[in-house]
């Protein structure tokens, strides 16, 4: 069933960020920052990301997602010799992945398809994912570190049409990236430099981590994207982060989620338990207007596309009409959208 989007607007194509700020002559922390107070009586501020510390207080806690991006786009041929673009979506076992199978924007997956990637890497396509029928179970002929090695050697980062050229994988990493698993960049934290994070730390604004391996953000089919806004994604919430969150709140600080993946992780765990505890699991939590946020006080996120499910999540922090008005301001002021674009702090 197609869901009505939280807010509707048109995004001019010239406001799509085509490349990282480093390739536009900027440092990663020099993208723009739109500061949107949750208190509607406080003004919206337009500034630079490097100034984010001016809108945080000693005792606040930044919770980031340290999942590292994989080069999850692979090219293969099927048994007829036809080219198949394989976009890995979610790892199921050491040799089994859910994946999109595409020819351009056309979904071409079918059971029994045999894929040859070259370099002795092959796969058999089994059944579609029972909950997400546009994803196919791709069973590789090797597993574990050997499979990971070939994914790295043969894959490139997933990108969309507004990024014209393939870019090095390191440009898709946050500065604190840990173990790999995300098929698309956890982009909300990308603008942080270590210089900025260490300065914030010295001012009493601390850092804690979770890990959630992202799936694909788009199936390249708008109707499917609208019907299935959230996939199941694997998360890990460590004990050290739980302690940091508890200490932050006990001292009157604010927990700022760096990215919607952090919101979904923390709110999933909080909803399952009385009080937050370390946890590992899967979430498909869809957050929208009216959702009672149990843990997160603020959100740092990118600028989201029209009709994106992320806008539903933002509506849990900001009343939708106000959010729309601010987005129209951002368009007027020519903020840049997507993973290499500008940022929004809701606090």
């Amino acid at each position, binding site marked *: 069933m197609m869901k009505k989007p939280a807010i509707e607007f048109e995004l001019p194509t010239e406001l799509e960020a085509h490349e990282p700020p480093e390739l536009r002559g900027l440092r990663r922390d020099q993208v723009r920052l739109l500061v949107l107070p949750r208190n509607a009586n406080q003004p919206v501020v337009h500034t630079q990301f490097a100034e984010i510390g001016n809108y945080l207080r000693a005792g606040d806690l930044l919770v980031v997602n*340290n999942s*590292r991006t*994989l080069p999850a786009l692979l090219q293969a041929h099927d048994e007829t010799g036809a080219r198949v673009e394989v976009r890995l979506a979610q790892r199921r076992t050491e040799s089994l992945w859910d994946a999109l199978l595409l020819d351009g924007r056309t979904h071409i997956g079918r059971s029994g398809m045999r894929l040859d990637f070259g370099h002795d890497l092959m796969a058999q396509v089994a059944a579609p994912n029972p909950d997400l029928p546009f994803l196919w179970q791709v069973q590789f002929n090797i597993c574990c*570190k050997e499979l*990971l*090695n070939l994914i*790295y*050697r043969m894959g490139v980062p997933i990108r969309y049409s507004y990024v014209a050229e393939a870019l*090095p*994988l*390191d440009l898709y*990493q*946050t*500065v*604190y*990236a*840990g*173990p*790999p698993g995300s098929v698309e960049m956890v982009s909300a934290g990308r603008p942080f430099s*270590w*210089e900025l*994070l*260490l300065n914030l730390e010295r001012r009493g604004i601390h*850092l804690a*981590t979770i890990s959630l391996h992202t799936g694909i953000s788009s199936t390249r089919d708008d109707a499917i994207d609208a019907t299935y806004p959230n996939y199941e994604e694997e998360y890990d919430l460590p004990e050290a982060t739980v302690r940091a969150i508890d200490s932050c709140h006990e001292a009157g600080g604010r927990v700022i989620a760096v990215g919607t993946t952090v919101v979904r992780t923390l709110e999933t765990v909080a909803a399952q338990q009385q009080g937050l505890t370390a946890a590992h699991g899967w979430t498909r939590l869809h957050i929208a207007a009216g959702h009672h946020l149990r843990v997160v006080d603020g959100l740092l996120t990118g600028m989201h596309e029209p009709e994106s499910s992320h806008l539903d999540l933002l509506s849990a922090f900001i009343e939708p009409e106000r959010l729309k008005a601010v987005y129209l301001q951002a368009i007027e002021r020519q903020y840049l959208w997507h993973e290499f674009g500008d940022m929004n702090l809701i606090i």
Partner: protein
Amino acid sequence: MNDMNNKVCLITGASRGLGKALALEFGRRGAKLVINSRPASAAQLAETERTLRDLGVEVLSVVADVSVRADVERLAGEALARFDYVDVLVNNASALGPTPMPYLIDYPIDDYEQVIRTNMTGPFMLTRALVGQMIARKSGSIINVSSDAGVVGYASWGAYGVSKAALDQLTRTWATELQGTGVRANSVDPGDMNTTMKRASDPEGDASDWADPQAVTPIFVYLASDESTEVNGQRFLAREFEQAK
């Protein structure tokens, strides 16, 4: 002896010479290892891996050229996928350049760029890829393998010497930026060792004057261990170090 205490250590250039000696010493002391070599040394790296496994060491070997940007990202990703984190990074892989070693004023540009890329840019890229997870964990040790060719302007040691001088400066700058984070960066000049690289650089030299690589490992053990958590931005001469057990 278990003073490496399950630390995860990544050693580049571990197929032979000092890198292999470090891998064996760290492994004997309880470390978990990621060992690396360039593709041309893959067979020797596999042999090092087998030796370590026979000793009961948990080890991942990754063939990657540290002068290649995509290889560095792969090496970091595979290491973190296997062990979740890296505690110690030893930037040991280095290229000597063409032999017999030419004067710097005669040095071929392409060879110069490759030596710089392997010996300086490679450590820069790999450290950049791994230091973040160290800072986030508030713990880590970066050990850069230096040389007196980076301090003294020896004729015919041009590109290699320049790269080692630059690597020492990377050490100093990282140490300053990392102060207070729990992550430290130090350099070690291992001195003349009886290795393939030394023999190639000095075919007329007397190998009996050169140390066995295993003999210079104590300073590396010290810098990798928790005994050195307050040591940052220093440059050590391996032969003068006597503290490690």
